[in-house]
């Protein structure tokens, strides 16, 4: 099963940031509804099992 770490939508948190934790990253998702586009970000661990949105990073 793939891990979040390898996903295009996983972005590791820089060490200088207040919420930095080793292995933690931002999972960013683009959504669109009748009122327009927006982007969501939630924290995930690189070792978490990837979700259905998983897209391997090139």
């Amino acid at each position, binding site marked *: 099963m793939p891990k979040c770490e390898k996903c295009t939508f996983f*972005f590791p*948190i*820089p060490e200088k*940031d*207040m*919420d930095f934790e080793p292995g933690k990253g*931002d999972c*960013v998702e*683009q959504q669109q509804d009748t*009122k*327009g*586009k*927006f*982007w*969501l*970000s*939630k*924290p995930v661990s690189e070792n978490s099992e990837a979700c259905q949105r998983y897209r391997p990073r090139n």
Partner: protein
Amino acid sequence: MPTTERTARLKNRCRFKHVAGGEYVDPGVKAGVERARLITQAHKENIGEPTSIIRAKGLENILKKITIHIQDDELIVGANTEHPDYFPMYPELSYFSTMDMVESHYCDHKEEMAEIAEYWKPYTIQRKAEKYFTPEEIGIMYSATTVQPPMFVTAFSSIVPNYESVIEDGLLKRIEVVEQKIADAEEEIRKSPWNAPEKLHYLDKIDQWQAMLIAMKAVVGWAQRHARLAKIIAENFLTDPKRKEELLEISDICRHVPAYPARGLKDAMQSKWFTFLLCHSIERYSSGYGHKEDKLLWPFYKKSVIEKNEQPMTREEAVELFECERLKVSEHGSTKGRQLREFFAGSNDLFILTLGGINPDGSDASNDCTNAILEAAENIVTTEPSIAFRWNEKGNVETKKRVFNCIKKGFGFPSIKNDELNTQQLIKYFNVPEEIARDWALVLCMSPGITGRRGTQKTRSEGGSDVYPAKVMEIALTNGFDEFFTNMQLGPETGNAEEFTSFDQVWEAVKLQLRYAIELSLRSKDVGRIMESRYLCCPFISSIDDGCVEKGLDGNELAEVANPWHNIIGGSVVVVDSMAAIKKLVFDEKKYSMKELMDALRNNWEGKEEMRLDFWNAPKFGNDDPYADEIATKYYDLIADEWKRNTTYSGTFPLPLAQSVAGYIVNGPKTNATANGRHAGEALDDGGISPYMGCDKNGPTAVLKSVSKINGSKHKGILLNQRLSTVLMNSDAGFDLWHAYMKTWHGLGIDHVQFNVISSEEMKAAQIEPEKHTDTLVRIAGYSAKFIDLARYSQDTIIARTEQDLAAG
């Protein structure tokens, strides 16, 4: 018209969160579960820690883990929930409020939220406070008939955040200050010799300061999350170079504020927005948008727009930013308890910013930033945020013309407060130094409070809550028993009106019922205040107040500047007119007996139309009629005197504030027929001193003269609604006529006035074809709403207001 294509697009797709009849109008609106889930998780993990630390770790958990989002086109970023269509939930406040949401169609996570609500039940401030009241007292308060239910069950609060300290200092500097406080305290408690009375208080303070540190660091981290998201979107999801550039600038701004002092207007606006979200909606829920925006932002407006040396921008770009702010407020999901959703019919929440007045040095405070904010309001046409304008004799005419332009377009705002009167009151009653008093802003709709770096209002248990006078008078005639709505004993046994033989007995019964309602309401606020300071510490809110940092105290506990006030909501003029009719027809002319009157009221005037018309045509307030006005004077003095008997948490007596929001609508169906000739269930008077609908027949000046007989300095505010002719306001002479009217109003020393400028024809047309009137705004009382979003019952109360002809005088 919106100033730019961006704000036109943003308005077109705005995710409005306003309510009507207690329900959210937009079908997409949902209750977000993440805040509730995360604060519960942190609570379970940290039980046993001091409350301030538990609360700080709750906030930290939310800010670290909640899903954040940025929408297309936005220039100001950040929200209080995981999705732009949602509003958050606060299970730590009130069990009933949470369950109301859980049972509603807004909640998609019913099982999880019900479990969360049950977990919190013993910890809520509702359960903590209820035990200090008898079941009968709880029954009275929760029925919302003579008094507003207490904050510990409605979860309603209000606050004026210390925006200045965040924007001027930045949080990293404040973190250093707090760290030094802890270091100093640690040193003090180790000094020789040991002295317990002098040292032990540091233990609680160290906990409070530690909690502030946790909160502030979490906030900086949360802003950095937004900075990262903006950059990630720019670099990974977009191709449009202009939007990419904007997002990279947003990213830079969120890296910079609120961690550091704001550099220019863009920083200041973003820092203000983050602070607003945290204080009003994330750490806990509090209503309001209380700040003096033109004063707060003026230094940054100057740097960016006029001098162009920090974050340079054109004036049009600044107006666009203010339009973005209005739309951001419009789609901010506010979570009010049931009663308040009904009380703010047609609105999202009470978002009211303040402009105008004078500076601490006495000079005119209206500047080009004031004008740009008004211009944005005029262009974008949204009901929220509402605007209060401090009318001072020194105010420049150009700004007053912009105020007029908004009013004549029918927005219902700015509402206008008498600057000199309200400044003097802060000095005289609350001992506020004059230079601080001159920076006041409205806390919510009507009540001035100080702004700045310390001492601002932190909770509604300081100022707020309601007494409902029409219902109080009703039960004063029925021995304290409510025969009409609840079938409960709502007040002391003060006798049945059938047996009253003098007008003084009527007064005495009203006074004693009012006294009971006032004291019950004040006690519930102060008990709530204690529970807030014990169990609902707000470390972030405290960390941005210089006084709380200096003293190591929570903002709920510290009452550095007393500002107690208490609303008397909708129905004051029903009482005045009813008393006038009773005096004239029962005791002066002896045309009817009290028994006949009580029979008629109990039967809703059925079969007594002639008698009802006698009471309907008795002297009415608002006509410069000495008979009715003398009773009004006595009534408003009585209110002030009755509140003055009490001393509240902050050590002084509260001032009454007569107003209504939509309480005059909601409380109509709870109130039986009244002696002013009103039917059972008919709406009450729509303000704090607005003549009853259709009863002011002698023109606008007569209204002002009646109102001016009340000693406004004894009251925190008295709301006057007036409706003006659209034809006249839009004529060439419109401004001059209105300006002359305003000078008369100001010269008479009246506290407040706000206007509806809309014709009955337009409103009736909107009732028939609502889809053609989507931008038709009206003033309710204290806030504005889209006419088409009101229930028919509410709409009719706006149409019913007398349209005054300024030219007639």
